[in-house]
């Protein structure tokens, strides 16, 4: 019966997030439950009854998995955070594109070559800063709402599949950019400007990631 009890508690935590807090909670519950069980058995309670009493005394386990019990932050308003993230990313992508447009415009209409490139780099710097900020401010945002066990599982399987598709698309983008870079550069010999393609590659990647993000929702 002791083994059954151990198994029962193991099972309770089978789907819990693998955090230190949940591991400690399990150990705490295990120690207390075992002691209660042995006390009952010592008091001549039948093993089966002791098992039932201990199980009954555990109570509603779901409340133990609530994220605030595990010391985790829950995003207050999921929808809003997702929208905000998408907005930031859209702005960043817009800035990359504007940078390229700016560079082309300066190149076309003025004689200051370097101004165009400097302007474009500035745009790219701002856009990159936004992306870095967003990445740091909402770390692994998606994982934060895995409070319910089922949701967590679902996310786990869906997430992995999507992620791998996204990764392959990104790889393809960079392969294409690299190949085009050399082909076009050798064809035109305009090496001084063809590196811009890498910036365009960044744009393309950002757009792809954004699309995946929106699709996710």
């Amino acid at each position, binding site marked *: 019966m002791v083994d059954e009890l151990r198994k029962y508690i193991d099972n309770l935590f089978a789907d819990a997030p693998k955090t230190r807090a949940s591991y*400690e*909670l399990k*150990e*705490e*519950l*295990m*120690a*207390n*439950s*075992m*002691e*209660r069980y042995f*006390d009952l058995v010592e008091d001549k309670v039948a093993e089966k009854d002791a098992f039932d009493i201990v199980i009954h*005394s*555990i*109570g*509603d*386990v779901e*409340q*133990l998995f*609530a994220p*605030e*019990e595990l*010391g985790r932050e829950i995003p207050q308003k999921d929808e809003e955070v997702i929208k905000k993230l998408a907005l930031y990313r859209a702005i960043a992508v817009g800035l990359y594109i504007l940078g390229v447009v700016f560079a082309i415009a300066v190149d076309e209409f003025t004689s200051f070559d370097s101004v165009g490139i400097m302007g474009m780099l500035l745009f790219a710097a701002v856009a990159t800063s936004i992306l870095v900020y967003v990445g740091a401010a909402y770390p692994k945002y998606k994982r934060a709402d895995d409070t319910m066990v089922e949701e967590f599982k679902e996310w786990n399987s869906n997430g992995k599949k999507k992620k791998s598709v996204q990764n392959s698309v990104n790889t393809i983008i960079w392969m294409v950019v690299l190949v085009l870079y050399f082909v076009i550069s050798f064809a035109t010999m305009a090496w001084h400007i063809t590196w811009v393609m890498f910036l365009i590659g960044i744009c393309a990647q950002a757009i792809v990631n954004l699309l995946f993000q929106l699709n996710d929702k």
Partner: protein
Amino acid sequence: MSMTSDMLRGHTETIILAHLMEHDSYGYQINKDILEKTNGIYELKEATLYSAFRRLEQMGNITSYWGNEGSGARRRYYAITEEGKEAYKNQISEWEKTKKIIDELIK
């Protein structure tokens, strides 16, 4: 009985603090004590107890440490902090006030 039950649950944190005022303790011991003091009528669910521990810990009213039991799972002991003692005093005086008011109202 269910009214008593609800009332008691509402004071889980004070009950825990009161217990820890005497000595450090762990979940099952506290529950055993409650059972004894209420003549075997009442005890807390483990889940209720642990969420109260976490709340108290987050508020800095208690701290926890692991015991080193030789065999089997380790016990998690809780100790009251200075803030916890302060909070306990406040809750007691709060309760005295509430008791008086309710006595007045339902007499």
